């Protein structure tokens, strides 16, 4: 699935340059579940952004299948994100003015899916996360766990190959955390996804056989 070689990512600011990732080599197989841990500022989100085609590395190559994400232009990266990659964020990142159903539909907007098809698929995705009865609710009318379910439905509705989650349970209580992790794991198993989860929580990390630790921009298996 992923093949990273010599990946370095630096952010240049006016005065100094921050190197968030240093010469990272990493392989992630198709259908793998990977947990990423590490201290704050270590470079976890930065790695996820490179894996998610949100950004290009400063040097090195990020192969997603046959495509080197380091060499694609913005438009191509956008197309890749639209069709192949699903994101789940710590803050849920739902559009506050759109209903649950409409939020899920936003993921199909760039894929030129016809209207009725879009509505049907979004409804199915909401059903698969157990929120069929909340379709017309606004995010503000949903609990944190429910909002994260809507976000997961949005990430899955396009049937991506990869699901990237940055601290998906970071804003949730323990019980909801376990529900969400159960949901993600279930989807990973059922759909043959590659699931990569960044987490601070060792409880969560323990669920996976493969765990990575990122510290000061370097990646280590553990």
């Amino acid at each position, binding site marked *: 699935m992923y093949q990273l070689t010599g990946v370095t990512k630096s952010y240049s600011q006016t005065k100094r340059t921050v190197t968030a990732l240093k010469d990272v080599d990493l392989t992630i197989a198709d259908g793998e579940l990977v947990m990423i841990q590490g201290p704050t500022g270590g470079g976890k989100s930065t790695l*996820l*952004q490179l894996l998610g085609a949100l*950004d290009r590395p400063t040097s090195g190559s990020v192969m997603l299948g046959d495509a080197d994400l380091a060499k694609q232009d913005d438009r191509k990266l*956008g197309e890749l*994100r639209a*069709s192949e990659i699903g994101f789940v*964020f710590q803050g849920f*990142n739902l559009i506050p*003015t759109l209903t649950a159903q409409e939020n899920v539909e936003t993921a199909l907007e760039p894929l030129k899916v016809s209207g009725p098809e*879009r509505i049907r698929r979004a409804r199915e995705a909401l059903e698969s996360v157990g929120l069929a009865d909340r379709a017309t609710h606004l995010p503000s009318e949903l609990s944190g766990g429910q909002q994260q379910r809507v976000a997961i439905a949005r990430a899955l509705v396009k049937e991506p190959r990869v699901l990237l989650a940055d601290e998906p349970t970071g804003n949730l209580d323990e019980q909801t955390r376990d529900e969400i992790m159960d949901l993600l794991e279930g989807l990973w198993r059922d759909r043959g996804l590659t699931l990569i989860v960044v987490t601070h929580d060792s409880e969560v990390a323990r669920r996976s056989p493969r765990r990575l630790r990122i510290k000061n921009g370097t990646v280590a298996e553990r």
Partner: protein
Amino acid sequence: MFATYLRRELLGRKRQTLIIAIGMALAIALVIVVNAVAAGVQSAQASVLQSVYGVGTDITVTEAAAAPADGQAPGQRFDFGAADGTTTDGTTAVSSSRLEAGRGTTTFDAAAVSTASGVDGVSNAVGVLSLTNTTFDGQIPGGAQGQQGGAPTDAGTGTGTGTTDGTTDGTPPTGGPDGAGGSAFNLDSFTVLGYDPAADALGPLTAVSLTDGRALTADDAGTDNAILDSDYATSSDLAVGDTFDIAGTTFTVVGIVTSTSADGASASNVYIPLDVAQTLSGLDGQISSVYVQAASSDSIDAIKADLETALPDNTVNTQADLASSVSGSLSSASTLVSNLGTWLSILVLVAAFLVAILFTISGVTRRTREFGTLKALGWSNRRIVGQVAGESLVQGAIGGALGVALGLIGILVVNLIAPTIGASTTSVQAAGPGGPGGGRFGAVASAAASADVTLQLPFTFAIIGIAVGLAVLGGLLAGAFGGWRAARLRPAAAFRSVN
């Protein structure tokens, strides 16, 4: 999705939508009202002008007055000879009536009419003679009483130093032969316009309509028949068939006319055949104005230039030139509207645009994570810019619609209040000095129209179109800035933990 998202954003962020829309609405309403006021003031000016120069007149030809030499003061002096008065009980009653060119009016050869007709592009030209008839009558006590200031009863000249009441209502002399020795004078004046009843209708008479009797026809040339303005007829208690006096000649009223112009002012109190007017005033072959109609409104400037060449001694004015002769609060209103109004609406418009732009940019900034997330979902830059621009456009359009409604209400309110503004137009020929003595009887009418015009604001679809166009422009500007801002956001902004 575009429409759903747009609708939800506008309804979900009502405050932002309302602030931008209301700002825009205020500006648009102001633009509409200021424009309407400008148009209303202009049409008020046109109507004042129309009452003096008639409908269809494109150009007038007059002659600027030359400063008269001393002692030639026109019209302000009455000479009474010993035989002029009738003496009873030691008091002499004197009366003198004369017809002469209106104050400030200079007459010139009527040949100018045919010269003007001969100019290329002129479809019609008529000449008129604008006159003032002044009647001076009074009673002077007998010489035995030796009243100082009273004029001698025989020989010498009686210059009016008594009370003059300068109105046109013909108040009879007061004071008199009661032994108290008072002198009483009355000065009555009215305007007389001589025009050629055989010529095509053009000039002042096109701004009046016949309400009683008949109009003057070609057959009236040379006769002592007159048409009266209805206001003057009423105040002088004259009706069709009555007779009255102009310069000692008895005229018969054959018709009454009423002004058709909005302000009700008319060019003259009395209308008589041109040839009679010329004879009575001793101005044979003279006229005071030529009214010129152009075949096409496009050629007015060219005709004006040609007329100036053909009639080098005359003053040639187009309707546009004449507009500047309208004075009074109407002209102040016009100046105020065109200066303050225009600047104020530009200022408010710029402010509204700035508010829209700043609010849109800050809105986009607040939605950084939202747009980052959409980019992470694969939304193209174009799609996101389109969304932002769409929101701004609709906000602008709502503002435009509100503004049009507000503007129309403003127009309606002004029209309901119908404020009156004073307007007077002194005929352009009044440029010259009145001459010595002129100031003494300054209150006596000159050939001018003075009226209170009620301001009526017109409603035009053109201005609505412009207003909506401005609203759309404001929306586009705000959308462009907001969209530019949104386009620059990185998709990684989706990872920001705070908004």
